[in-house]
Structures are given as structure tokens and as C-alpha cells.
């Protein structure tokens, strides 16, 4: 199975080029803000960079998912379900500050919900996959 490795390589390359693109964009944005009045625009990474990442990821998803064998469509659903709970990243940041606030409570709720999903999703996927056996 050389394919996963080559796919990882390709994804790595893509990410690399996306990174350099982002770098260029940042330089460009820097130049722009110097040339013009102080830009009130988005802080941090520019939207175009995020959109680039998004569109490329949709393409990666498209090609990867079409190769999933139909017999494993149920595990595919449960595992995508588990990984979409990576939204916990946003929840952790909300629950992270000191003191107590509405945002922190929201963060706590989201961490709990996402944790149900992460543990539940990966475990049920593993249970399913363990059942798929070849002829003895």
C-alpha cells in the first residue's frame, strides 16, 4: 500500500503550497496596508487564505470519499461524525479563560457535547470495523 503515503505526500505538498500562498498574501496585505490608509479589514489570516484552504480540502474530501468502498459507508458516517467534533477546539478556547462567564459556560457545554461525540464516534466505528472479517 504505497497509496496512503503518496496521498499524504500530496496533501503535504498542497499544505505547503497553501502555506507559501498564505505567506505571499500576508506580504501583499502588508504592502497594501502600508500603501493605503490603515486597513480596518480582518485581523489575523486573511479570508482568501482560509477560502483557499477550504476549497482545497473540499477537493481532497471529494477524491478520498469516492474511493471509500460502499460496504464501509456506515463506518464512514460515524467516523466523519467523530472527526467533525474537532469543533471541540473552539469549545476549549471558550472554556479556557479564568473566571466564570456566559462564554465559558457555553464552552463547557460544547466541550461536553463534542466529547460525547468523539468518544462515542470513534468507539462505535472501531466496533463496526472489527466485525468486518474475511472468509476463514
Amino acid at each position, binding site marked *: 500500500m504505497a497509496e*496512503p503515503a503518496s*496521498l499524504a505526500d500530496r*496533501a503535504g505538498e498542497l499544505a505547503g503550497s497553501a502555506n507559501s500562498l498564505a505567506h505571499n498574501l500576508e506580504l501583499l496585505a502588508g504592502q497594501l496596508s502600508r500603501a493605503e490608509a490603515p486597513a480596518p*479589514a*480582518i*485581523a489575523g*489570516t486573511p*479570508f482568501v487564505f*482560509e477560502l483557499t484552504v*477550504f476549497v482545497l*480540502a473540499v477537493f481532497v*474530501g471529494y477524491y478520498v*470519499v*469516492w474511493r*471509500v468502498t*460502499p*460496504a*464501509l*459507508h*456506515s463506518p*464512514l*458516517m*460515524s*467516523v*466523519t*461524525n*467523530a*472527526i467533525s467534533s*474537532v*469543533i471541540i477546539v*473552539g469549545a*476549549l*478556547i*471558550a*472554556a*479556557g479563560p479564568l473566571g466564570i462567564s456566559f*462564554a*465559558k459556560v457555553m*464552552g*463547557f*457545554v*460544547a*466541550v*461536553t*457535547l*463534542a*466529547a*460525547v*461525540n*468523539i*468518544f*462515542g464516534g*470513534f468507539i*462505535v466505528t472501531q466496533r*463496526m*470495523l472489527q*466485525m*468486518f*472479517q474475511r*472468509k476463514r
Partner: protein
Amino acid sequence: MSESLSAFFYLAASICFIMALRGLSSPETARAGNLYGVAGMVIAVVTTLLTPHVVSFWLIILGIVIGGAIGTYIALKIQMTALPQLVAAFHSLVGLAAVCVAAAAFTFPESYGIGVRGSIHRGSLVEMALGMAIGAVTFTGSVVAFAKLQGLVTGRPLVFPGQHLVNAALGALLIVLIALFVSTEAPPTFWLLLLASLALGFLLIVPIGGADMPVVISMLNSYSGWAAAGIGFTLSNSLLIITGALVGSSGAILSYIMCRGMNRSIFNVILGGFGTEGGAVAVGAGALDRSVKSGSAEDAAFILKNASSVVVVPGYGMAVAQAQHALREMADLLKKDGVNVRYAIHPVAGRMPGHMNVLLAEANVPYDEVFELEEINRDFASTDVAFVIGANDVTNPAAKTDPTSPIYGMPILDVERAKTVLFVKRSMASGYAGVENELFYRDNTMMLFGDAKKMCEEIVKALE
């Protein structure tokens, strides 16, 4: 941890997730793929915990322990037949989590670096509104799907006059509210937007019937991904964006495959109401005065034993009756007698994509005996017995011959080409689409009336 270092680790996590999906291309690599997924999640969580934003841990640990315990318990206890409702329930949690994160980002934008309260960046507001709206639609939509699959409410489509008008109005209201929210950043518009999205999710799924659930679940799977991506845009987090895009496109592809399996457009499914006519379409055609041949378990056992090749066609009815284990026992006995037994799975068999494969795998049916429609459909002509258990519409030849039939054009399993067709069915009732199956009246068809599980057990007894 510096920002570029954490970005690097987020990239590693993204690649792990891609590998997790890639592993599913074959059952042999799938387990390793799942472990990649787990690794990716661990990397993502640990990396976030090490960022300077996170300084207080007790609430986080509490949340992970509580959630983890609940998730683990459910995942270990759940029956495989209940998988569709489990997945629907899990989708709703992702949706709700997205709403919570959006609410946190709105009330405390400083921790995400998207501005200060009252003057959040315009772009972030748009992304936040979209992420939350999709999350809320996913949440209520999945709750309705769960209730239908679990049997808490009727699986029949619930339609009322003016439904599409209400939905369209609600959709328009959503757009207005998003515009209002982005321009004013007023808290009331945020909560109104939330309420409108929750209502829309509810109304969107309510009119969709039980057997369309494979599409609905796939669609909600897709939505949960887009919601995550929306939140990723809000927080400028590429890991969330990448993962959301992966999940979103995965769900979209599954929805497409399911729609193709029923020869219906996604709009046709979303607009709902399919199968509400009940059996009304079926009557007429003079079918009723024709006689059917019905047989006993002993007759079936005799026919099966004398066959040299058998293809089993399982459907949702097998899952409901929990007949997969008895079925496999029957197949084992036949195989011992030298009969070639295989299984044919229609793309929309069951209540979620791939559901039948999991149930058969659970009953220890080796996956290399299980075939997809395209792989096996040609072989029916050279098959002695087609054993249809709990399936109906997916075998109906009217899909090929009768342009007026609601299921016309749907790809079907050509069981009628087999020398003998055995139909395990509780009654003569028509299937989900409300269409009479002409196959029941053919000379080479024998109906085996009864509960799928009991019938298999009786055949096993007769074979022994």
C-alpha cells in the same frame, strides 16, 4: 506554544483525518484509518490546550470526563440495528456544539481575537452567523431524524398545506436576520437568528418519510461538516476548516449516492412527502385478483437445499426482525451442503448508507460474500434461488417496465431473473413507495409469510 507551532500541529491533525477517511477504501486498512482519526483528535486537543488562551483547565477536564463517559457507554451498549438513530443523535450534538461555540464567540470575541464585544470584525460576523445557522439546522433536523428512526414519532412524512411556503418564508427571514445581525451586531438579532434556524431545521426534516432516511442522515452529516467549517472560518482555524470541508463533502457524496440509488433528485427528497399516497397507487392494475403461491419453511428448505447457487437480498425488514444471525446460520448449513451462497445489497437498503453490510458483518458473514448491486446484478440470471428477506421495492421490476410507477427508473436488483424467488414477508402489504410488487404473482415466486427471524429459524430446523 507559539502560533506557528500550533498551526503546524493542526496541519498534522488534518492529515491524520484525511488518512482516516482514506483507510476506509478497504476493510483491511480501515481499522488503522480509525486509529489515525483518534491520533488526529488527540493532537488537535492537546495542541489547543497548550495555546496561551487556555489557562483554566478544571471545567474542560470535567466536560471531557462527563462527555467521554457518556459517549463510551453509549457506543459500547448500542445495538447495531439502532446505528442510524445513534448517528442522527451524534449529528445533533455536533450541531449544538457549533451553536454553543458561536454563542461563546459572540459574547466573548476577545479570546478568539476577532475583535471586541460590540465591534467584531464584519467578516467574522458573517461566518459566525452562517456557522451558527447551519449548526442549529443540523441540531433540530437531527433531533427530528432521531425521533423518526427511534420510532418516537411516526416515520410517515408529515405534510401540511403551505409547507413549502412556510419554509421559503423562513429561509428568507434567515437571510434578512443574518444581514441585520452583521450590520448591527445587536444581541437580539443573534438569538432571533438562532430561533429561526432551529425552526427551519425542524420543518425541513418533518415532511421526509422513514425510508428516505438514508438521504436525510447523509445530508445532516454534510451539514454538520459545513457548520464546523463555518465556525472554523469564524475562528480562523484551518484545522476546523479542513475537517469541516472533508466531512461536508463526504456527506454530500453519500447523499448523492443515496439519491441515485432511488433515482430521485435531492430536491425531490428534501421537498418530502414521498410515499404519502399509501397503497392508493397500487390498487387497480388488476393485480388483486391474481393468486400468489405461498409455501412453508419446509418447502423453502427443500428448494434451497437442491439449489447450487443462492443469492440473499436483505432489506430493512431483516434489520427490524433482527434476523441476520438466523439468516447466517441458514447460509452456513447451505454452504456445508455445497451451495454457493452470496449476498446482494441495494444502495438504499436499510436506514443509513451501508447499514446492511454492518448488520451482516455483525452476524459474522464474511465481507467477501457480500456484493453491491453493480457487482452481482448480472449473476441473477444464472442463480437458482433469490432469497429476498425484508426487502420489497428494491426488487420491483416495475421500476424497469412501468413508466407511470413512482419508482420508475430506480436501479433494482434483478431477482426475477433467478430460477426461483423466495420472498420472506410478513404480509402482502406494499413497500414504502406504496407500489404493488408484480413479482409476488409470478409463477417462479414463492411467498414465505411470517416474521423474518422465525422463518429463518424454521428453515434452519428443516435443513438440519
